[in-house]
């Protein structure tokens, strides 16, 4: 056994991986041509190194800090790999690994090659770098690089006007978000101006400063994560990027934003006050329901996935809010349960959302379409993709034995600890939040039954859909990796809980109460084994055994003959695939029940009177209140103001001189009066 040299720390390995990503990106960007092909293989190697380093750092609970002599003059670049960075690094790099494997299967001649690879590599390098930044400058710098690279990926296919609009909105929101973060760090640094995170942690904050920082970081990191009402850019930008980049943006980049939020609110801002939880709980619950209502009514596969990201971010926000509230009220055990829910949902969501986006990418590649109503029947032509997408669907609907259910279970357990709040506001709020979460969970099932059913089941609704072909083998492998992780995370959740234990101890004060005291080592326990247990492994084995047993017995005792015939359909099967339920007809009951309230949805039926020969018309009108109030109205105001001010651009020199002279007089007068 040879002792590892002292410099071979996880931190060094991670730095190597980041450099590897960045160098591959730069080389590919400069040389182009054949050099573009190196990006994905190098990214796979770098991701494997990074995953190993993050895991090592997390398990050894290491805290590695270094100051590199680059960056701002005189301060250098502070980097630190602690358990929080390592955990989120794990999320990022597993996502990158899957996306890069999927990227191997892209056709270099057709898939916008050259406009993706260099940016892809630098994008993932920047995400990793944000996580290990240990001062405000480094954090903001890498955050900006991450935003810009992802913007470049969003507009990679810039021929489409939709994508250009998405890019514009995204750039604007990213700029506002970074400005808000700059403001937040300014507040944290205080008058002393210490921009390292250590100085910020130590600096005293008045309640006013804390409030301002909280608001600013909610705007800055919240908008990047996609919290309502700052989510409007997300369903435009995420689907516009190539699918494996969509997977990274939705599955991974939103988690980097969550990391920023946790870093500032749980770490830098100091001891929490109970009302800090309010914006998290209120915004999170509203986002969860609203995001799904958008998703269930939308007709574009990738946009449905993006809206569902908004929903999942809402769930993470609620979990973080519960954790904050419990921590502020000194209920550490409950805080640990809520924080475990937040962290596990972050990693679980990164797995199943990446899986679903890669599946959507395979569908898009095979058919050229992503509108639900142009697809259908793909389970016959793309059986493997369909099976893997189904695994993702089960996970995202929080159905056992997959992983999505684990975080939901933990979150409901933490809601049940709500009566312990001494603060009446929180005590009243927690059942309301629980009800919203329950509604969101049920809506998620409807949304993804619709998405999977319309795209993969039934009959093909377009020639493109019937001519689809299975995805290349590497892409199936990438999806298979994520699906396996979803199942693993569901069955062996206790392993993941053990992995995040140092984080729970650090931020909630205690490990998950009752962990490891269950009837079996794999059982998940919240608080106390008498109070709440869930053992996915037993349930999973139980399900498989009873399912297999039933199948065997039924095949033994029943008439095993199977005949294929035309569909029954109550005796009147219609040959045309148009008569099937489409995406919009599937969501029609939901539109009537929820859409009328949330979006003012109205069905306009124009039915000619009997004898009248003109065609009947049906249309649906909906308005998006968030877009209209928060985006369209300010945009109108800005443009209106600009048009009015525009007159000043075309004046004679004489008038400009008059303006300057009067401005000078006014300034002098003001100065004279003031002093």
């Amino acid at each position, binding site marked *: 056994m040879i002792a590892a040299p002292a410099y071979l720390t996880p931190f060094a390995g991670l730095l190597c991986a980041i450099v590897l990503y960045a160098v591959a990106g730069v080389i590919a960007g400069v040389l182009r041509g054949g050099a573009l092909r190196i990006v994905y293989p190098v990214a796979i190697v770098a991701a494997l190194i990074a995953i190993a380093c993050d895991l090592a750092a997390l398990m050894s609970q290491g805290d590695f800090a270094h100051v590199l002599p680059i960056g701002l003059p005189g301060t250098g670049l502070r980097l630190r790999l602690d358990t929080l960075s390592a955990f989120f690094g794990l999320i990022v790099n597993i996502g990158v690994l899957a996306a890069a494997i999927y990227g191997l299967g892209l056709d270099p001649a057709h898939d916008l090659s050259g406009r993706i690879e260099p940016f892809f590599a630098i994008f993932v390098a920047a995400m990793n770098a944000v996580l290990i930044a240990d001062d405000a400058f480094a954090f903001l710098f890498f955050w900006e690089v991450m935003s810009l690279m992802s913007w470049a990926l969003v507009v990679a296919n810039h021929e489409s006007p939709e994508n250009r609009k998405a890019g514009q909105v995204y750039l604007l929101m990213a700029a506002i978000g970074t400005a808000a973060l700059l403001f937040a760090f300014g507040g944290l640094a205080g008058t002393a101006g210490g921009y390292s995170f250590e100085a910020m942690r130590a600096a005293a904050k008045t309640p006013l400063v804390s409030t301002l920082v909280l608001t600013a970081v909610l705007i800055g990191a919240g908008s990047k994560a996609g919290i309502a009402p700052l989510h409007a850019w997300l369903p435009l930008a995420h689907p516009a990027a190539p699918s494996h980049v969509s997977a990274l943006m939705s599955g991974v980049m939103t988690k980097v934003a969550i990391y920023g939020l946790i870093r500032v609110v749980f770490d830098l801002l100091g001891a929490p006050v109970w009302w800090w939880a309010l914006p998290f709980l209120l915004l999170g619950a509203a986002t969860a329901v609203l995001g799904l209502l958008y998703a269930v009514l939308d007709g574009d596969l990738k946009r449905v996935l993006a809206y569902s990201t908004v929903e999942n971010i809402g769930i993470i926000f609620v979990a973080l809010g519960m954790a904050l509230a419990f921590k502020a009220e000194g209920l550490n055990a409950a805080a640990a349960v809520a924080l475990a829910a937040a962290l596990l949902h972050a990693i679980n969501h990164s797995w199943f959302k990446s899986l679903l986006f890669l599946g959507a990418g395979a569908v898009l590649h095979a058919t050229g379409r992503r509108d639900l109503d142009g697809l259908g*029947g793909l*389970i*016959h032509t793309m*059986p493997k993709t369909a099976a893997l997408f189904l695994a993702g669907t*089960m996970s995202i*609907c929080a*159905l*056992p034995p997959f992983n999505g*259910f684990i975080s*939901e*279970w933990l979150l409901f*357990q933490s*809601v*049940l600890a*709500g*009566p312990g709040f001494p603060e009446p506001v929180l*005590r*009243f709020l*927690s*059942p309301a939040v*629980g*009800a919203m979460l329950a*509604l969101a*969970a049920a*809506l998620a*099932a409807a949304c993804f039954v*619709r998405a999977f*059913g*319309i795209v993969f*089941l*039934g009959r093909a609704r377009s020639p493109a859909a019937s001519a689809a072909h299975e995805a290349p083998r590497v892409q199936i492998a990438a999806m298979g990796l994520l699906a396996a992780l979803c199942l693993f995370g569901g069955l062996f959740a206790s392993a993941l809980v053990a992995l995040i234990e140092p984080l729970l101890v650090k931020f909630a004060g205690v490990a998950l109460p009752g962990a490891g005291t269950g*009837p079996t080592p794999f059982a998940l326990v919240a608080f106390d084994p*008498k*109070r*709440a247990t*869930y053992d996915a492994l*037993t*349930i999973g084995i139980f*399900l*498989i055994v*009873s399912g297999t047993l*039933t199948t065997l017995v*039924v095949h033994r*005792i*029943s*008439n095993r003959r*199977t005949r294929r*015939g*035309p*569909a*029954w*359909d109550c005796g009147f099967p219609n040959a045309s695939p148009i008569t099937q*339920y489409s995406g919009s*007809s*599937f*969501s029609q*009951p939901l539109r*009537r*029940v*929820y859409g009328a309230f949330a979006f003012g949805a109205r069905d306009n039926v124009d039915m000619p009177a009997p004898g009248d020969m003109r065609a009947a018309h049906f249309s649906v009108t909906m308005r998006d209140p968030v877009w209209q109030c928060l985006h369209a109205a300010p945009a109108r105001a800005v443009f209106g103001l600009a048009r009015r001010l525009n007159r000043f651009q075309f004046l004679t020199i004489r008038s400009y001189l008059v303006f300057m002279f009067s401005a000078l007089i006014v300034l002098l007068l003001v100065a004279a009066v003031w002093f």
Partner: protein
Amino acid sequence: MRDTIILLAGQFAQMMLVLLIAPLITGIIRRVKARFMRRKGAPVWQPYVDLSKLLRKESVIAENASWLFRSAPYAVFAFAWVAAALVPSFAAGLMFNWAADVVALVALLGAGRAILALAGMDIGTSFGGIGSSREMMIATLAEPALLLVFLTLALMAGSTRLPEIAGHFISTPPTVRISLALALVAFVIVALAENARIPVDNPATHLELTMVHEAMVLEYSGRHLAMIEFAAQLKIVTYLALIACLFVPWGMAPANAGPFAWFAGLLAWASKLCLGAVLLGAWEVSIAKMRVFRLPDFLGIAFVFAFLAILMAFVTRAVL
């Protein structure tokens, strides 16, 4: 070791028991309905005969049915069976009662529903689509209400585990509690909706545009249909057993009580189930089916009641 074997045997007995009793309960419901309508009605064991007949028939499936369509009946059945086996019946604290708490039970029932809804869309007929779409719409209202009812009871009992909840209500003297009453009303509404009973859906119709569950399974025949019908019967047993376990748990044997106490528990359980079946039959003949778009109001009542129940439980600072 001996305890483990006994518990395992008890669990196995329960799994077989729910299978045996499920068609009988459906038979009783149908018989009661027939008697109320002044018809003679089929004997109570008719569902057994129906199932065995379906098993003996060949299965005709549509030309474009995929693997999902063929495997869904078994998956739906497995989920229904496991859910039914997890609800404490004649005894609390059987082998696997701890494996899934109330939250997990909601998810297991939801999984069966989602798979059936997908199977309904597989052939690509408009009937399958209408059934799946409406089933999921109803679920978006019923499932949150169900979860809130469960959470309310969990708050009162200080545990989300079914045996603990039942044990709590057995050990505390029976008192009238408003939140418990609200929860019961909400639960009954949800149970009607989830089992496709009148007034939400009519299990006896075909060829009617308002049908929900029957429209989803329209393309099934032979052994596949047998599995789906059996799963539906198991689901009724699950919900009746849940009412018996959560709202009237008296008579249930405690954990580790051994076979003799189990026998007494078994009698109590079976009579509670039969009583539930009779009440359901009587309810179904005394009310008409609702239009589909009045359902949100009906299920909304369940949601609001369940929310009020949990709110009260929070305000009174229940044990948890």
